[in-house]
């Protein structure tokens, strides 16, 4: 028994796959599936936290799957960014699994909610951990297949409408992604991301490299719901069950953002002046369109969906500025956003149970009837808008400070205005849902499929996390800082995957 520490890299993928397979085996027992949902994601969270600590100690953890050496086999790599993302997946997985105990009906379970839930987590973690660009595509597909099915679970008309837009845009993105991989492989003859980074530095046809970079930008831009490819998101995220919405809102677009971070730091860092300038414009327009779109909405989850779009803009802004502090800000923003956004969606679900509607016009009076919920709404809502001392304040502060240092005045102005407009949206929800009296007789409390405590627990837990990130932000900031260092100095990643002498040996053989 000499298990190496590298095993931790594979476990965040293996555990959800096992839990999903077991849920299928216990197809008939809803109790077993629920237990597997909660304890499977709890196990995932434990493993991912261990992975984070191990990655903090070792810098990079690498596992060559099946003992096939890099760059020929598929490697799983965990650096700080990947480990942080995996931990966030664990947190959101556990929160939604607990919420699902009363938020997902037996009918939906019979359609295969839990196996798909685990498959989605496995796909998301696979995308975070893989060090192989084609494998990244495969994990994207695993995640998408699961998300397609989760999106239409229940088969209502609105869900189908949303799903058509979602599926079409995402298939287009996959096709672009795949052709970009093909071109990249043709240029470098390898699929290992570290190896691509090494070989791309020597490619003379930099024009073609930029074309491939743009293809990746469009493909991941669609997945991340960046401008101008965002419209599938507000068209679909408000249609499925709230637990599914929260899972999607927390994780799916962030996989696209993660892929942008990975690819545009490790691989396409040769012509930053061109590619990252475009990213800067995308970021600004994404922030603006998202927040303006939200201002016109009067459905709880649609407002939140548009705010996902605007928040994605901040993260991409961090990448686009491409200074150490900006990357720190981007990573910090991702951490803050995933927790806050999933929580807001969960709150919209609890509101629905208590008051019977998602439409702001039909809601009201929650402050009077459930003051505690109002408090727990204020925490993530104000954090999203960036009020101190909550997590969102520091996330925005770091990014805006980085913008000032980089003298990107327009971007700073946009970021500040968007923050203000976010506050407007949150105040709108507050006024309509919590403050005003509920109109008589339009909507009534819905029967939940379990005790409401299971809905409260994740909301309280995530809200506490938001406060903690704000009050004790130092360790989180240090983690983000370490991940930014690793992202900007790619030699550590390359050396960890390919071995110390690889680059020199390659240059030697070329001579």
């Amino acid at each position: 028994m000499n298990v190496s520490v590298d095993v931790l890299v594979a476990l965040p993928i293996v555990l959800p796959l096992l839990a999903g397979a077991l849920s299928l085996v216990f197809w008939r027992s809803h109790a077993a599936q629920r237990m597997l949902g909660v304890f499977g994601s709890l196990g995932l969270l434990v493993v991912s936290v261990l992975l984070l600590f191990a990655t903090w100690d070792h810098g990079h953890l690498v596992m060559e799957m099946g003992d096939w050496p890099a760059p020929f086999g598929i490697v799983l790599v965990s650096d700080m960014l990947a480990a942080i993302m995996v931990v966030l997946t664990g947190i959101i997985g556990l929160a939604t699994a607990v919420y699902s105990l009363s938020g997902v009906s037996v009918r939906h379970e019979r359609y295969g909610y839990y196996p798909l839930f685990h498959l989605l987590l496995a796909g998301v973690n696979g995308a975070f951990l893989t060090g192989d660009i084609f494998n990244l595509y495969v994990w994207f597909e695993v995640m998408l297949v699961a998300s397609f099915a989760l999106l239409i679970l229940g088969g209502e008309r609105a869900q189908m409408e949303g799903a058509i837009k979602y599926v079409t845009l995402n298939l287009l993105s996959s096709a672009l992604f795949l052709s970009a991989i093909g071109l990249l492989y043709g240029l470098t003859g390898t699929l290992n991301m570290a190896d691509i980074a090494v070989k791309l530095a020597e490619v003379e046809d930099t024009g073609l490299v930029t074309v491939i970079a743009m293809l990746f930008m469009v493909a991941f831009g669609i997945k991340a719901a960046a401008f101008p490819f965002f419209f599938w998101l507000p068209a679909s995220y408000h249609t499925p069950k709230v637990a599914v919405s929260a899972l999607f809102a927390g994780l799916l677009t962030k996989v696209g953002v993660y892929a942008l971070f990975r690819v545009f730091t490790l691989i396409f860092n040769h012509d930053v002046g061109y590619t990252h300038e475009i990213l800067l414009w995308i970021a600004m327009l994404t922030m603006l369109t998202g927040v303006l779109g939200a201002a016109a909405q009067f459905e709880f989850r649609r407002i939140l969906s548009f705010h996902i779009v605007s928040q994605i803009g901040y993260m991409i802004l961090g990448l686009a500025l491409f200074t150490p502090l900006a990357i720190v800000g981007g990573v910090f923003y991702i951490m803050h956003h995933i927790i806050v956004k999933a929580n807001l969606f969960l709150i919209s679900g609890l509101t629905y149970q208590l008051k019977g509607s998602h439409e702001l016009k039909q809601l009201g009076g929650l402050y009077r009837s459930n003051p505690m919920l109002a408090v727990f709404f204020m925490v993530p809502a104000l954090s999203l808008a960036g009020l101190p001392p909550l997590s969102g304040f520091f996330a925005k502060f770091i990014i805006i400070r980085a913008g000032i240092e980089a003298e990107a005045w327009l971007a700073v102005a946009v970021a500040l205005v968007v923050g203000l407009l976010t506050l407007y949206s949150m105040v709108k929800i507050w006024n309509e849902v919590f403050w005003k009296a509920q109109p008589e007789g339009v909507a009534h409390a819905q029967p939940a499929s379990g005790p409401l405590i299971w809905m409260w627990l994740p909301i309280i837990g995530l809200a506490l996390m938001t406060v903690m990130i704000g009050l004790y932000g130092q360790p989180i900031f240090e983690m983000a800082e370490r991940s930014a260092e690793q992202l900007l100095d790619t030699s550590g990643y390359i050396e960890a995957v390919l071995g110390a002498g690889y680059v020199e040996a390659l240059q030697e053989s070329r001579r």
Partner: protein
Amino acid sequence: MNMQSLILRTAGHFLLPLLLLFSLFLLFRGHNEPGGGFIAGLVAAAAVVLYLFSMDIDAARRVLRVDPRSLLGSGMLLAVLSGVPGIFRGQPFFTAQWWEITVPGLGMVKLSSVLLFDIGVYLVVIGAVLTIMLTLAEAED
């Protein structure tokens, strides 16, 4: 769904075991030669689907004995678990493990975790295809 064809019904009875045997042959042959869990699973699923066409859904479910979803789940379980033994020897996940066993009458037989993975794939393919086909057939009724 029932085709009411005497020829098909009669043939279905004989073809089912033959095709299942053939699928097993493909599964084990796949280790070193063309074949393998995926194609074998398709053949096995096709055998049951043929039976479904010649008889009816209940007959097909009876001959299958287990819910195809359980097949899907257990296959997936087997496939993922087949990657585990390597890690207890300090090797990466999914590293192939080999065991040599002497079977009376056959001589030495090499067993490997790769074979377990292939059987897992076999079950997953059967389970997935039959889940789809049986659901469609039920929707038709």
